[in-house]
């Protein structure tokens, strides 16, 4: 039972720049898979609205950052198993993506980010012609 708890917990980490406000920053859990056409990243971001999610792809870093509205601090908690705060996670990516065709979709707090590979780096089947 303790093992499955480990999986579900969002890891707490610090964003690279020091924060001005003392609030928790969480590392969202992700699944990343690659196909011949590109890469797909799925992340769990419960409590994040579409307008509060920011995804950036720089030269070779992919940044996912999101704000979550703070819960009422004066709540009288009987049970407090999770806290809310920002989400922050960065990945280094070295593939060449077709930057114009990147798609991001957020439904029910689950992000699906599709990064299609640029034509130049897609695996190509080369037919050998008999000479």
């Amino acid at each position, binding site marked *: *039972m303790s093992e*499955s*708890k480990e*999986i*579900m*917990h969002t890891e707490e*980490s*610090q964003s*690279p720049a*020091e*924060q001005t406000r*003392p609030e928790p920053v969480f*590392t969202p*859990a*992700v*699944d*990343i*898979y*690659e*196909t*011949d056409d590109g*890469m*797909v990243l*799925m992340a*769990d*971001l*419960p*409590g*994040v*609205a579409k307008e509060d999610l920011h995804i950036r792809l720089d030269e070779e870093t992919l940044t996912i950052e999101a704000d979550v509205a703070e*819960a009422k601090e004066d*709540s*009288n*908690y*009987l*049970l*407090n*198993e*999770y*806290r809310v705060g920002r989400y922050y*996670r*960065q*990945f*280094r*990516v*070295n*593939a060449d993506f077709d930057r114009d065709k990147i798609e991001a979709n*957020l*439904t*029910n*707090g*689950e992000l*699906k980010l599709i990064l299609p590979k640029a034509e130049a780096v897609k695996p190509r089947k080369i037919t050998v012609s008999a000479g």
Partner: protein
Amino acid sequence: MFLTRSFYPRSNWRGMMSEMERMRREMDQLFRMGADMEPTMAGVHPLVNVSEDNDNFYVQAELPGMAASGIEISVEGKSLTLSGERKAAETPEGARFHRRERAFASFSRVIGFPTEIESEAVQAQAKDGVLSVTLPKAEKAKPRQIAVQAV
């Protein structure tokens, strides 16, 4: 191919104070659990926050990737049951996983309350992967103000 950012130690004073505060709250909670809130759980997913005021109990649960239709809620006497199944989205054939950190499973969790619940009036809504349930306390369980009469 992918690297996560390393963790920086917390260095500011206020951050440390709030961390202490959080630990204190968690300790308090551990001690209190035995008394009036006995969470009986079957599996740990989902994580919940339970708060109360004079009229209601409020339950919030993190259920990313779950549509409202996939969450089953039932109330009986003093307890609330949340159950459902989180299924993995279909992955295309030949997909090679770089990371697989998210868990998919069916879940069922019972949360016990110290007083009776007005089961007819329970309301629930799911938004952005967070489920919020409002459970009104039964009339007889609500705190009552008693006026002191001067003699």
